[in-house]
């Protein structure tokens, strides 16, 4: 068994193969020259947290090849070639190659893209109280870094092209609450602001804006999306379309080759239409598990409700389902003032939920909403909006099945 990519997904899959009874060799190939580590803490607290240690890899008898890239895949020969010249034969292969931070479409000055431990280590050394930071991109990574930089006393400006933060992933009212929290922390959030260029000057980097004005900063950070790493699959002739295309059980178009995590695009039973590519820790973890069972012969579909969280300042934002799939909404205001947003489709089925609150205040309710989404329950909007109706009780009702 060979796993290419030692991020959250690949590492989980490697351990899951052993946990599910595989007694043969398991090789985990990772491009970074260190132990597999968690990405979420990097942009939130600058923290480096390994997923496992050498002892755990040894105990599971997983052969870990760090600092190694796969350069070629031959699905017919069932072999993958590495950049150290070796070739690994596989019975089954998992592509968990993740994604790469998208670069800005222009040069002119150094820009920090943030994806890896190394990226964060470098950025962190440039920040201190009073450092002027320009964050291009008001998505999750940009906003988490803005909050983390502000916590160090940096003077932060966020430049977002769209008229609100975090795009269609989060409903407008939640984005508004988050924007207000950044403003309260002294972060200058500018939406509807297009960046047209960068130039280095003696005093710093000048970021030019479409309205003709500019912002001068000491450090530029860009969080403008991530591009799935599909080159290996493409060169091998696998079906690729902004992600390695897989079926419901994460199998690619090549026999015995699976793909999972940030690099794959898969059909989701709850969201018919274009297959999804999810960039979240939970999806990476769970897809690593599903891919492993698939590699061992199970025919199990990945059907988990999408879910992710983002920590910014003292707030934790959580989203279950796909906010963009909702055509109607209901909002519940809890006694503690926290707003829970529920997204419904045209049949009145709950398809998404989102909330933001201090610490873990929203976790329980979003988790219950996630269960309602999975159960495909049709829930009256007024019951969702009524803080007197326990979400748990809605789960236990006989769901109205269409």
């Amino acid at each position: 068994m060979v796993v290419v990519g030692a991020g959250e997904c690949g590492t989980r899959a490697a351990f899951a193969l052993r946990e599910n009874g595989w007694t043969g060799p398991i090789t985990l190939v990772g491009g970074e020259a260190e132990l597999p580590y968690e990405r979420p803490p990097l942009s939130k607290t600058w923290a480096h947290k390994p997923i496992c240690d050498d002892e755990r890899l040894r105990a599971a008898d997983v052969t870990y090849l760090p600092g190694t890239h796969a350069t070629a895949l031959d699905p017919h020969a069932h072999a993958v070639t590495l950049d150290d010249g070796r070739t690994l034969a596989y019975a089954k292969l998992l592509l968990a190659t993740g994604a790469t931070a998208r670069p800005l479409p222009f040069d002119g000055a150094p820009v920090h893209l943030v994806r890896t431990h190394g990226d964060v280590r470098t950025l962190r050394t440039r920040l201190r109280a009073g450092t002027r930071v320009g964050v291009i991109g008001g998505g999750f990574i940009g906003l988490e870094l803005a909050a983390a930089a502000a916590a160090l006393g940096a003077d932060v400006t966020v430049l977002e092209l769209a008229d609100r933060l975090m795009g269609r992933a989060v409903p407008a009212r939640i984005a508004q609450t988050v924007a207000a929290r950044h403003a309260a922390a002294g972060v200058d959030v500018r939406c509807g602001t297009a960046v047209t260029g960068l130039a280095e000057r003696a005093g710093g980097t000048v970021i030019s804006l479409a309205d003709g004005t500019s912002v001068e900063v000491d450090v530029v950070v860009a969080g403008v999306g991530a591009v799935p790493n599909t080159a290996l699959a493409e060169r091998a002739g696998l079906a690729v379309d902004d992600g390695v295309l897989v079926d419901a059980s994460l199998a690619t178009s090549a026999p015995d080759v699976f793909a999972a995590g940030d690099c794959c695009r898969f059909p989701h039973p709850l969201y018919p239409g274009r297959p999804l590519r999810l960039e979240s820790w939970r999806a990476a973890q769970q897809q690593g598990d599903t891919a492993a069972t698939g590699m061992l012969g199970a025919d199990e579909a990945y059907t988990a409700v999408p879910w992710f969280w983002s920590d910014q300042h003292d707030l934790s934002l959580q989203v279950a389902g796909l906010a963009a799939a909702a055509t109607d909404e209901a909002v519940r205001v809890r006694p503690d003032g926290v707003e829970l947003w529920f997204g419904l489709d045209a049949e009145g089925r709950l398809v998404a939920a989102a909330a933001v609150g201090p610490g873990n205040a929203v976790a329980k309710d979003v988790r219950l909403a996630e269960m309602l989404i999975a159960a495909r329950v049709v829930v009256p909007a007024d019951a969702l909006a009524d803080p007197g109706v326990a979400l748990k009780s809605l789960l236990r009702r006989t769901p109205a099945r269409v």
Partner: protein
Amino acid sequence: MSQWIAACDVEDVDLEDVIPFDHAGNAYAVYRSPDDAYFATDGHCTHEQQLLCDGLVMDGVIECPKHNGRFDYTTGKALGAPVLVDVRTYATKVEDGTVYIELPP
């Protein structure tokens, strides 16, 4: 010599729910099962030390609110990644409407 410490009133915890209890600088979580039995564990998840009391209790399981690590709250057993280490449990008893947990000295 371990001791029984009063943690809360029986009605302080809803059915199939959890509340926090702090004692001597340590955090604990007290659970009430759907059939009215009480259980207690350490208050922090063994994964990244988040407070379990903010998590969902359902079907014998407490889920950590942060990453959904799952524990059987009756035995403390960690039910799979990301939680790999069991959470410590403490014996409980109910006397005169008060829930007591047995804590080490």
